[in-house]
């Protein structure tokens, strides 16, 4: 049963455009994340957001920025897309950061971005 909702499912755009992806979780979790999954299925964490504290993976280019209105929503904006940004962007949530039992990740179905 889906509890992490992502929109859109797919997005095709051209180099230099700005895109924005939405994510909402209905699990009442405290922490949300954005992951990037490339064509080889490699999963890399981009951001985590907990109680308005943003933790950024230092390898993420500055054109990426997360936006959160409340703990149930975490959007992702890409200012000027590049070809290497083509990937599936997965949103996830967890109850909180802490012990392993609280850290189970619940993923959305992902947004597939194609940059032409």
């Amino acid at each position, binding site marked *: 049963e889906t509890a992490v909702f992502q929109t859109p499912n797919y997005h095709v755009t051209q180099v230099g455009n700005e895109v924005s992806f939405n994510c909402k979780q209905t699990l009442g979790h405290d922490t949300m994340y954005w992951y990037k999954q490339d064509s*080889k299925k*490699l999963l890399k964490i981009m951001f985590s957001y907990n109680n308005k504290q943003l*933790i950024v993976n230092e390898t993420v280019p500055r054109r990426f920025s997360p936006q959160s209105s409340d703990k149930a929503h975490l959007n992702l904006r890409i200012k000027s897309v590049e070809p290497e940004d083509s990937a599936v962007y997965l949103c996830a949530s*967890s109850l909180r950061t802490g012990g*392993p039992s609280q*850290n*189970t*990740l619940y993923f959305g*179905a992902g947004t597939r971005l194609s940059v032409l």
Partner: protein
Amino acid sequence: QQQVRQSPQSLTVWEGGTTVLTCSYEDSTFNYFPWYQQFPGEGPALLISILSVSDKKEDGRFTTFFNKREKKLSLHIIDSQPGDSATYFCAASAGSFNKLTFGAGTRLAVCP
């Protein structure tokens, strides 16, 4: 630098057979090891997990084994079913989720 390595990259087994996926890691501070299962068009979902204080955890047809000395773990699927066809990710963390590191995944195909 790949801290969590999975093998094989892909695997095909016959229905009813036993599947064995393996994972190794380098960071000796890792103490939590979840396995995630991902079907096409979906996000990964937690399948089973183990803490470093245990050497085995079983959940139905799925069992994960942990060897702290060798820094290895494995996932065994008995009586494999076509519905098990998916990509399986091994992951590891040292307690803090923010440092959860995923392996590259193993694509499993179970043929009827």
